[in-house]
């Protein structure tokens, strides 16, 4: 009796990475266009994947069409490598491509992420793929998508400042937490996906390439290395990141990193660094084991590494942590 393996079709190289060659070519061409037009949303033909829309299919298609046998892939979901969603995607990618996986930000060549950018600075040659639930930053001010396209064409973004005005009048501060809109390369308004404000500056003049992809909306866009990315703000009231000062990580004792808040029964809160790969390395280091902890976007004192980019870090974001991570299938 021949075995099942003998009867089955031998593996074929041309379907490497699950997607067929046409799908990958489509995606790579769109990515090249996106890189040539920083921040511009490029439509693409989105393929069906054995994962439901809303669970990272946009990011996954980009990752699958970029990954090669020599890549090392890291997958995170709201900072965590070990969440069910991240673990599923990682397993799928590694089975379909055979690539090595890691939780170490510095060791990865390709990082797919939902809702966070790692704390450790990404370097030249690294690629960050962000899953995007809603690529259109103008949706709030212009629900008509074809009018929104016209506004992008005209770089007519003034209404966003009306939104900022309203936030200041009503709440005394900018209350938009995640997906804080940015202007890329002095041209396109872009939604950086639902990363917290804390991560938004990390896109500015970054050494790495960021690709953002929305599977449901079938659009992808990019921030090439060393590109200007400025959050929208007033000339006299500045964008600010969430205030993390005074918070100490319950596992590592570190401060001035983006923290998850863990409310306790007695009404107080404990904090834990949201980037689990970073925690892992800090813990190793504290145990005296070999660990290379990379340089971070924010230093121990909470200073951002591009001095002067953040005009102020305290103040009207006093009620911080208004980035409340949402659970479930909103990222695509």
């Amino acid at each position, binding site marked *: 009796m021949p075995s099942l393996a003998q009867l089955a079709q031998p593996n074929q190289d041309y379907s490497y990475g699950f997607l067929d060659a046409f799908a990958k070519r489509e995606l790579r061409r769109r990515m090249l266009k996106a890189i040539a037009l920083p921040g511009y949303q490029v439509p693409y033909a989105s393929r069906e994947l054995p994962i439901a829309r809303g669970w990272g299919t946009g990011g996954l298609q980009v990752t699958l069409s970029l990954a090669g046998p020599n890549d090392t892939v890291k997958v995170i979901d709201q900072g965590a490598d070990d969440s069910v969603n991240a673990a599923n995607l990682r397993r799928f990618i590694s089975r379909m491509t055979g690539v090595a996986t890691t939780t170490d930000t510095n060791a990865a060549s390709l990082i797919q992420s939902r809702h966070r950018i790692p704390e450790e600075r990404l370097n030249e040659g690294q690629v960050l793929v962000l899953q995007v639930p809603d690529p259109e930053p103008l949706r709030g001010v212009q629900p008509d998508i074809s009018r929104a396209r016209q506004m992008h064409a005209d770089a007519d973004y003034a*209404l966003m*400042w*009306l939104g900022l005005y309203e936030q200041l009048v*009503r709440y005394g501060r900018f209350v938009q937490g995640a997906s804080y809109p940015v202007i890329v390369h002095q041209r396109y308004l872009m939604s950086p996906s639902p990363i917290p404000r804390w991560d938004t500056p990390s896109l500015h003049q970054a050494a790495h390439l960021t690709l953002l992809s929305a599977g449901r909306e079938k659009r992808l866009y990019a921030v090439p290395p060393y590109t200007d990315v400025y959050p929208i703000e007033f000339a006299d009231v500045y964008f600010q990141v969430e205030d993390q000062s005074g918070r100490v990580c319950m596992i590592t004792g570190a401060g001035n990193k983006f923290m998850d808040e863990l409310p306790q029964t007695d009404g107080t809160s404990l904090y834990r660094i949201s980037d689990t790969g970073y925690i892992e390395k800090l813990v190793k280091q504290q145990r005296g084991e070999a660990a290379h902890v990379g340089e971070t976007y924010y230093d121990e004192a909470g200073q951002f590494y591009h001095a002067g980019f953040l005009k102020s870090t305290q103040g009207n974001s006093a009620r911080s942590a208004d980035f409340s991570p949402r659970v479930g299938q909103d990222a695509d």
Partner: protein
Amino acid sequence: MQTLPPQLITARPLLAARNLTRRYGSIVAVDDVSLVVYSGETLGIVGESGSGKSTVLRLLNLEEPADEGQVTLNVPGYGDTNLFSLERFQRRQVQIRHIGIVYQNPHQGLRMRVTSSGNVAERLILAGERRYATLREAARDSLAVSEFPLERMDDLPAKLSGGMQQRVQLAKAIALKPALLLLDEPTTGLDVSVQALVLDTLMRLQRERQIATIVVSHDLGVIRTLADRVMVMRRGRVVEQGLTDQVLDDPQHPYTQQLVHAKL
């Protein structure tokens, strides 16, 4: 009302519209209408409902293109340009910087989910202002000029009375000191007493600023109060025009005679 000594007008009109025609399918809403308005002057447009008055204002506000005809506005950089020939972005710039409009229905002119001051600030934001303190100040100033109660400047328009909503619209329209102000039935639908107060504000504005104004109303009292000259429209066409007193006191065209006798 302060009257200027009589003088020969040698200046170019601020606004000149020539042979405007606008069709909606088989309806000719505006049929070969020409008009001029000088700085500091107010032109009234009267006519029964459906005679094309609002459509004329929408054309002059560059909201939609005319099927035929031209509009020129004597403002720096655009004096000789047919504004309908401008591309979308430039047209909007002219509209934002040089033209203000108040609609009869506040829902058309205001964002109901944006504060009143925000509605006014929007004009400045669209013109490129990016200082929050400046926006606040300008919104406050403009609302004060339109005699809006400042303690309510951050209320949503939906919570305001009709008269106050019209004042917000007016503040928004004049925030950038436009050369041309378009008023489409600005007091229709208001209580008579409120109407009188809003008219007072409009008259004060006329005295204080040299804005060229066009006011549309089917209320001849409003026209008499505000307009220097009047134009009578019927079925998209101009049937009579002249000085307000002359046309309203001694109407020549049978249609105008009907209008005047029905309303006065």
